[in-house]
């Protein structure tokens, strides 16, 4: 039995946890302090964890009562908007604000741009206007006259790596290759490939994807002075990081932390692009200070596409081989991708099949272009890499005549995967798949061919303590307020925190109230890397447990019972001698006092059942081989992420990942015009996002698992679910048609081109 302990903690108690899942249960010893909660495992009896609980703020959202940053209207509030560069490269010669300032309703117009800086892409902020109405902003923006000197630009990877390409930054457009860890040299790869029974040498391409959160980036700022004359800045921000916004604003405006309060109760999506005090936060604050009025500065949809981030594209050249039994022996990837003006393509090629003995080499080139900067986007780098890797694996399996799932299992050490595949095969009807592709039991009718495909993902971030703390207040009326300063970007964080704290406390869930999104509350994480779930749920469990102990300590004397003989079980206070009090009755004993605790989350445990989360997705598609149109018929998505706190919101996360994955697979693409350097589709008309009519049947399965990584046993879930969808669809297309589409999105033109190429080749 392995021992499992927190780092650097003196311990006085030992439990044996049962971890894993049905069919694969292991025992781990865990040591803890007496007053610490017993970490949740397979044997923990839950009151409501693991059930289906409608999210706590669902009604607020569905009735329109939820107030997002965009919805904040304050008395006397002004509206602000940026003026942005209209050349892709060059310099700003002059910015004339005078005409704008002369317009009715214009309260301020400020130069944002430093004339010394080069223009790097079309869409950088050069000035900002501030007016009484939003319509006046339209007029004022147009009245700002900006003169540019144009320079040559380059907006695609292919163009940027040419020898004579205009230089985007201060150095060569393509970085020196980053060589992955444990890389062998090319000769060793070549040698391994020579011994392989099957090899592939192919190039895969993925597109630039924009986050397109429905609420654009934006801020409402109100700079005030209190009665003593002390300055205070209230900020409503559409953000994934309330505390990072506060920190950034303190720095930019030279304020102390206590002078800035960031509020973010509801956020209309983020997907990785909303961290920190962005230019909306800083300029809304500055303009509020200048005008003495609250200022709302929300980006337009066009700005959102141009300058707030995106998922880099990729050109991945893969050479790979396996032996005759399907064991991978060599994997060589050369990858080019652009993060626009930042030298970070984030297009790493994360490979989840790494059998012992496989020779690997990854070379990655980040290529600068005159395009808006990339930003982390839901599982950064993984969807790009998986699109190539998961198809290459299928291509090798095909060559050996092996089932793609059997092939994967040979090379996959992830413990839950065999069980996940078994379930997945059943749910999709894998036995209907014609191994040879093309016509078969799924043939479909006439030009319409059906096929099945599969792909998997592994994700490895589990959150941590990082100073996260949770405050809980139990009031005499029985309500339990749970507070943390972080945000809920739609992932269900509010509900997750409430349920974990409530479960550990034992109170009825109807009594739980959760307050998120105020930096005056205890510190919480920024929502990135899927850390919010594991971080906050463990904090919730521990704080709930601490609140219970505090509550019982206070209650004992009032009930005339030894506190140590009391417990809260399933919404009732019970004593060892068999007495019990309803929650409300017990709380009423508090009189006018509340029980209030703030608990700082403990560290993660050294090792649990598995340090990563994983899942499999299986897709059935229908391809119209005459028009190239791909229709997804069904997707089965099976995902583990430790303890399933709320099955309903867990499934929603998986559903969302799959739907975004479908959108990435078939529709989305940022189109840049090489001549002008402009984005041609900064809208949601021709930047195409999957709609209701595109939806297949989607079966989501929360794969229960006790991982013992932290008190709640919860891992990150938001990101991994978006990874396998596109390659599963691609593999299904290949199974349906017998041809591979190696470029995203798999639009009709590309499907038709692949079919035509195959036909040409056959002749």
């Amino acid at each position, binding site marked *: 039995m392995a021992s499992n302990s927190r780092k650097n903690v003196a311990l006085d108690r030992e439990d044996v946890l049962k971890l894993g899942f049905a069919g694969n249960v292991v025992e781990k010893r865990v040591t803890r302090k007496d007053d610490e909660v017993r970490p949740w495992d397979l044997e923990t009896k839950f009151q409501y964890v693991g059930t289906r609980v409608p999210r706590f703020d669902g009604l607020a959202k*569905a009735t329109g009562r939820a107030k997002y940053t965009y919805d904040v209207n304050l008395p006397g509030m002004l509206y602000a908007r940026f003026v942005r560069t209209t050349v892709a490269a060059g310099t700003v010669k002059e910015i004339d604000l005078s005409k704008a300032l002369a317009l009715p309703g214009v309260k301020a117009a400020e130069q944002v741009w430093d004339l010394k800086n080069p223009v790097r892409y079309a869409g950088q902020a050069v000035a900002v206007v501030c007016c009484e*109405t939003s319509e006046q902003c339209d007029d004022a923006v147009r009245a700002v006259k900006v003169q540019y000197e144009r320079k040559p630009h380059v907006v695609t990877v292919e163009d940027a790596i040419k020898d004579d390409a205009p230089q985007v930054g201060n150095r060569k457009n393509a970085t020196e290759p980053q060589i992955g860890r444990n890389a062998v040299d090319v000769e060793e790869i070549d040698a391994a490939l020579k011994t392989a029974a099957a090899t592939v040498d192919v190039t895969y391409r993925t597109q630039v994807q924009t986050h397109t959160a429905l609420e654009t980036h934006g801020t409402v700022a109100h700079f005030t002075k209190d009665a003593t004359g002390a300055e205070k800045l209230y900020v409503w921000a559409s953000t994934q990081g309330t505390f990072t916004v506060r920190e950034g604003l303190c720095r930019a405006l030279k304020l102390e932390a206590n002078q800035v309060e960031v509020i973010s109760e509801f956020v209309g999506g983020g997907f990785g692009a909303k961290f920190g005090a962005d230019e909306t936060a800083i300029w809304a604050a500055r303009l509020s200070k200048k005008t003495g009025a609250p200022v709302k500065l929300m980006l337009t949809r066009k700005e959102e596409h141009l300058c707030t981030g995106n998922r880099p594209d990729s050109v991945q050249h893969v050479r790979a081989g396996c032996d005759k039994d399907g064991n991978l022996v060599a994997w060589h990837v050369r990858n080019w991708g652009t993060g626009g003006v930042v030298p970070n393509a984030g297009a790493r090629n994360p490979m989840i099949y790494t059998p012992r003995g496989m020779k690997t080499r990854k070379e990655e080139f980040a290529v600068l272009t005159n395009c808006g900067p990339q930003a982390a986007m839901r599982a950064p780098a993984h969807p790009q890499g998986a699109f190539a890797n998961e198809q290459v694996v299928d291509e090798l399996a095909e060559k050996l005549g092996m089932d793609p799932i059997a092939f994967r299992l040979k090379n996959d050490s992830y413990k839950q995967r065999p069980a996940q595949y078994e379930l997945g095969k059943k749910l999709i009807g894998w036995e209907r798949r014609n191994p040879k592709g093309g016509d078969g039991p799924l043939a479909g009718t006439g030009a319409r061919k059906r096929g099945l495909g599969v792909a998997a993902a592994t994700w490895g971030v589990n959150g941590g303590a990082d100073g996260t703390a949770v405050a809980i207040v139990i009031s005499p009326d029985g309500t339990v307020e749970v507070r943390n300063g972080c945000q809920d970007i739609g992932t*269900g964080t509010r509900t997750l925190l409430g349920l974990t704290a409530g479960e550990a406390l034992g109170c009825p869930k109807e009594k739980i109230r959760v307050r998120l999104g105020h930096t005056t509350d205890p510190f919480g994480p920024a929502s990135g890397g899927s850390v919010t779930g594991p971080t906050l749920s463990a904090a919730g469990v521990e704080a709930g447990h601490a609140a219970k102990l505090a509550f019982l300590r206070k209650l004992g004397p009032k009930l005339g019972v030894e506190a140590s003989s009391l417990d809260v079980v399933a919404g009732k206070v019970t004593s060892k001698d068999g007495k019990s009090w309803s929650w409300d009755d017990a709380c009423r004993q508090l009189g006018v006092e509340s029980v209030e605790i703030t608990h700082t989350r403990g560290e993660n445990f050294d090792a649990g059942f598995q340090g990563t989360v994983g899942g499999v997705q299986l897709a059935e598609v229908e391809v119209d081989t005459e028009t190239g149109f791909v229709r997804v018929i069904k997707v089965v998505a099976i995902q583990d992420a430790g303890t399933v706190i709320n099955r309903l919101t867990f499934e929603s996360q998986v559903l969302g990942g799959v739907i975004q994955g479908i959108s990435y697979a078939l529709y989305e693409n940022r189109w840049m015009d090489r001549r002008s350097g402009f984005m041609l589709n900064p809208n949601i008309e021709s930047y195409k996002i999957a709609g209701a009519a595109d*939806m297949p049947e989607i079966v989501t399965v929360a794969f229960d698992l006790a991982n013992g990584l932290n008190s709640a046993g919860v891992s990150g879930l938001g990101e991994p679910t978006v990874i396998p969808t596109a390659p599963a669809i691609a593999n299904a297309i290949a199974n349906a048609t017998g041809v591979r589409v190696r470029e995203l999105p798999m639009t009709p033109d590309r499907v038709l081109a692949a079919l035509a190429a195959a036909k040409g080749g056959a002749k």
Partner: protein
Amino acid sequence: MKSQDESKEPQPLSRRRFLQGVGIHSVGAVAMATTLPKVALAGEPSVDASALQDPAPNTLGPDAVEVTLQVNGEARKLQVEPRVTLLDALRERLDLTAAKKVCDRGTCGACTVLVDGELRYSCMTLAVECVGSKIETVEGLAPAGQASAVSEAFAQCDALQCGFCTPGFVMTITHHLRNEKSPTLESAKRACQGNLCRCGTYNRVFEAAVLAATKGAGLPSGGGTGAGAGAGLKGGN
């Protein structure tokens, strides 16, 4: 903001001043031919003198004018320039912020409201055009502090994540259920063609539609989401 009567700008075309507080519809819509005028045959231009007898047109703006909108059963007075969209009028003048601005171009449905019982993108509609029309937003679907059956079903089915698209979907489904006696997952899917969700909640929206229609049927079974949803399977223990 100025109302038109205070406006200093000449209004050359305005033969009739806008009547404050009176719906625009009450002016000009009298004594009209109810069929289209007789039309000459192709290639034979004809002159129609009827235009000369037509009542004068209503002219508003370009400065702000006062209009009265019927929103959620209440008469709401506000000052708007003619260029102000219904969406901005609701959000920025009346503080009715449920309808969201996402694309501002009629492509996403987040701003969906009902105008005279029909689904409309309020971002592509002018506020001044809506005088005399019945406007419904999510805020009006249930008394303050309560929730309509549709909103209720959205929350129960978790047909929302970030929730920014949700008010638009709630309006679309509300309209769908008013007009469709036996809604199905498929009919709800068709109804939602003009609404976009970035978080990816569609299938649950369809389920919410069906649940709302059969109110009181309880929670949908877990696991499957979509047409022919699968059983509530779970892996592991």
